[in-house]
């Protein structure tokens, strides 16, 4: 009875989204990070979340897989409410997700190969290791790291770690992939290869994708839809064209990388560098 009710509600939302958020509010103590956000994410589309640093993008994307629980509001996956499930029940749901952490979050006690097979090993019994080796090889070549199977995360560069984490996130061929800043810390060419990879996965497997990024070039390239967060609220929502021509000054400043007048004034007010800071040369004599 209750379930039918929930289904009706989501249907009434007028959006057959794979993922839906309703009136999501998140506080950490007194700090209000997200305020009453509602959002539906469509199947097989790529949604890009942009916004200034610290505006709550990571917090938002973690709610989609319920790594964080809302202070109030609801999260739905395929019409089923998931924000109030117990951890054990959530584990079933999370099998359908891939999540790329902003910091990679590789297991540093395991090597690259073991990291990538971790999700496979947790859910399937491996009978034929040859198949698994081939799978790891193919996932690693997708991110340009074949041959690094035996490296430990400590011996990889920051960008390499990120790419291994990406390979791990797609290891189970999930239905939904959530990427937290996949291209940050990569050189422009690598970043573009990741963009192509995101496009390829969506095109060939119809994967529903949510990407958090600061990188507008990448956003324009991969997005079917771009949403912008600012001070805990959605300020813009639409395709790339819509965002480019958005009237809101905050959006224009963000996509053009311009500093706002307030911020500039604050910087000027802080005085000249030599007045405020001791340099090593001050102690030379």
């Amino acid at each position, binding site marked *: 009875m209750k379930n039918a009710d929930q289904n009706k509600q989501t249907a009434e939302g007028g959006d057959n989204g794979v993922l839906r958020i309703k009136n999501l509010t998140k506080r950490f103590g007194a700090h209000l990070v997200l305020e009453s956000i509602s959002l539906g994410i469509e199947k097989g589309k790529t949604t890009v979340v942009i916004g200034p640093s610290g505006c709550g993008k990571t917090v938002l994307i973690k709610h989609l897989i319920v790594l964080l629980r809302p202070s109030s509001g609801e999260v739905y996956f395929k019409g089923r409410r998931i924000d109030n499930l117990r951890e054990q029940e959530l584990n079933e749901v999370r099998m359908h*997700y891939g*999540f790329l952490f902003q910091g990679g*979050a590789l297991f540093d006690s395991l090597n690259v190969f073991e990291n990538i097979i971790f*999700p496979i090993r*947790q859910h399937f019994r491996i009978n034929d290791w040859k198949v698994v080796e081939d799978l790891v090889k193919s996932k690693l070549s997708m991110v340009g790291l074949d041959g690094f199977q035996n490296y430990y995360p400590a011996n990889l560069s920051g960008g390499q770690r990120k790419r291994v984490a990406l390979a791990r996130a797609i290891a189970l061929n999930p239905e939904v992939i959530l990427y937290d800043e996949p291209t940050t810390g990569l050189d422009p060419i690598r970043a573009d290869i990741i963009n192509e990879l995101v496009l390829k996965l969506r095109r060939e497997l119809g994967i529903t994708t949510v990407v958090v990024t600061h990188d507008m070039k990448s956003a324009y390239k991969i997005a079917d839809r771009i949403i912008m967060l600012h001070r805990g609220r959605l300020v813009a929502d639409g395709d790339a064209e819509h965002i480019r021509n958005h009237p809101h000054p905050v959006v224009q400043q963000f996509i053009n990388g311009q500093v706002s007048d307030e911020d500039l004034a604050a910087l000027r007010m802080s005085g000249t560098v030599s007045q405020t800071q001791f340099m090593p040369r001050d102690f030379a004599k």
Partner: protein
Amino acid sequence: MIETLGARTIRGINNAGQFARFAWQSVLTSVRSIGHFRTYPLVLSQMNIIGVRSVPVIMVTGAFVGMTLAVQAYDQLAGMRLEEHLGVLINISVVKELGPVLAAVMLAGRVGGALTAELGTMNVTEQIDAIRSMGTDPVRHLVAPRVLACLLLTPVLIIYADLLGILGGYFVSVWQLGINSGAYWMFSASGVELYDVLVGVTKGFFFGCAIALISCYKGFTCKEGAQGVGQACTEAFVASFISILALDFALAVISKAIYNSFWPFKSLVS
């Protein structure tokens, strides 16, 4: 002043409640994961880290306890011309109290610290969240193997500490203090019962469980940053230490009650 006191009390009760829930969950998960083939390699590797590498340290601890007891107790007993009873005193103390408690404290420092630091670092670098994001229960994957390994190995390590304590006491008593070897063993054997050894070893199960649960809990709830991890390790050690002593007291009371109520049947058992 009263306000801070109240706030502290509430926080304390909150923490205790959280810990109780964590501990309950962990114990349940550990029991359940005994039936899973996937846990065994994890438990074995933890047993290697926790158990095998602790053996030398534990043995040294045990040996010194036995040796020190011999030196300390000799004068008092010699004053009463009872020095041949030295063996009873040393071996009872080692087997019932000092062996288990000191071995557990040693483990709390060696293993507890490492567990907290490892899990704490995994927590602050989001590795625990990564496990959750892949649909695996971090308690099952991380806590259960550690709890099981500690539970199984602490009693074994206590036996090592006991053995070395007994040997250490023997060497000092017989070789250095010149007590007759035959008399030493005879009095020891008549004074130490199997029950005493069992009590000591049983304590190991409780101590091991407490060390693992507290250290894992502190790691899981560790605050951000290098300082957070350091603080969690310190707190884990202090909490483990206190609970070892508290458990030791409680178990002493309980084991005595059990012993007394079964005293009449003792002749049937042995």
